[in-house]
C-alpha cells in the first residue's frame, strides 16, 4: 500500500497539477489585463512571448501598442517567467489555445458550452476556471456556465 502511494505521488508530481505562478506583475496587469484576462507567463514559452511582444500594434487585430520602455519591461517579465515543459510543448505560436496539451485538456467540452455568450471563446479562462486569476486551473475549481462542475 505504502509503495502504491509513493508511486502515485511520484506520478502526480510529474503531471501539470493545474497550477502556474500568478501574473503578479503590476505593469503587466495594467497594460495587458486591462483588455483581456491576464494570462500567466508560464502558459507560453519564450519564443511565443517574443512573437506576441514583437507585434503589439496588430495584436490579434487590435492596436495594443506600448511605449518602448514599457514594452521592454513587460517582455523582460514574460521571458523571465515564461513556461516550459508540458503546457508549452510543441507550441511556439502566439496562442495558448494552440498548445497540444491545452487542446487535449479541452477536447471533451461541447462546442455549445464554449460558444455561449458567457464564455464565447476558449481564451476566456476565467469564465469556467473560477480561480484562473490566481493561476489555479485545477479541475475542482471548474464551473462551466449553464452546465456546472466539470469533474
Amino acid at each position, binding site marked *: 500500500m505504502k509503495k502504491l502511494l509513493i508511486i502515485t505521488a511520484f506520478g502526480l508530481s510529474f503531471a501539470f497539477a493545474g497550477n502556474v505562478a500568478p501574473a503578479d506583475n503590476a505593469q503587466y496587469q495594467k497594460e495587458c489585463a486591462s*483588455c*483581456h*484576462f491576464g494570462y500567466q507567463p508560464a502558459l507560453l514559452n519564450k519564443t511565443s512571448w517574443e512573437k506576441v511582444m514583437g507585434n503589439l*500594434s496588430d495584436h*490579434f*487585430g*487590435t*492596436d495594443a*501598442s506600448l511605449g518602448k520602455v514599457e514594452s521592454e519591461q513587460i517582455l523582460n517579465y514574460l521571458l523571465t517567467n515564461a513556461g516550459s515543459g508540458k503546457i508549452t510543448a510543441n507550441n511556439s505560436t502566439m496562442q495558448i489555445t494552440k498548445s497540444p496539451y491545452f487542446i487535449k485538456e479541452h477536447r471533451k467540452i461541447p462546442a455549445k458550452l464554449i460558444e455561449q455568450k458567457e464564455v464565447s471563446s476558449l481564451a*476566456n479562462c476565467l469564465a469556467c476556471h473560477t480561480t484562473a486569476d490566481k493561476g489555479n486551473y485545477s479541475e475542482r475549481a471548474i464551473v462551466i456556465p449553464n452546465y456546472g462542475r466539470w469533474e
Partner: protein
Amino acid sequence: MKKIVCFILLAFTLLNAKEFNAPMKTYMESLSVEAKAQNPNFTGFDAKRGEAIFVSKQAGKKGTQMSCTTCHTTNLKNGGQNVNTNKPITALAPSANSTRLTDVAEVEKWLRRNFNDVFAREGSALEKGDVLTYIINQ
C-alpha cells in the same frame, strides 16, 4: 447679502466646471497649437464635433462596422465592454470616474490605439482635441 449669493454661485460654478488638470491642460494646449498650424482658421475645440467623431460608424478592421460606442456605449457615465474579449471597461465620463483624462500618457496611448482600431489611422490634433472636449463634459 447679494455679494454672498454671488460668491456662493461663483464657487458653485467653479466646482462644477469641467476642467482638465494642469498636465492635461498643457497637453490640450499642444494639440491646440498643432491644430492651428494645420488649419489657420482653427478657433478652438468643440464638444459637438467630438461627439460626432465618437458616434460615427467606421468600416472596422474585422469586417463589421464599429465606432467608439461599440465598446464605450453612448452613455459615457456607464461602463462598457471590450467587443473582442467581453472584459468590462470602466466609465469614460470624468463625472462618473474621476481617474479618466487625468494622465497624459494614458490618454495619448488610448487615443493612438483606439483611433487605429476604429478609424484605421491615428487621429489628427483637431480630432483628438474635439473628442477629449466631448468626454471631459460628460
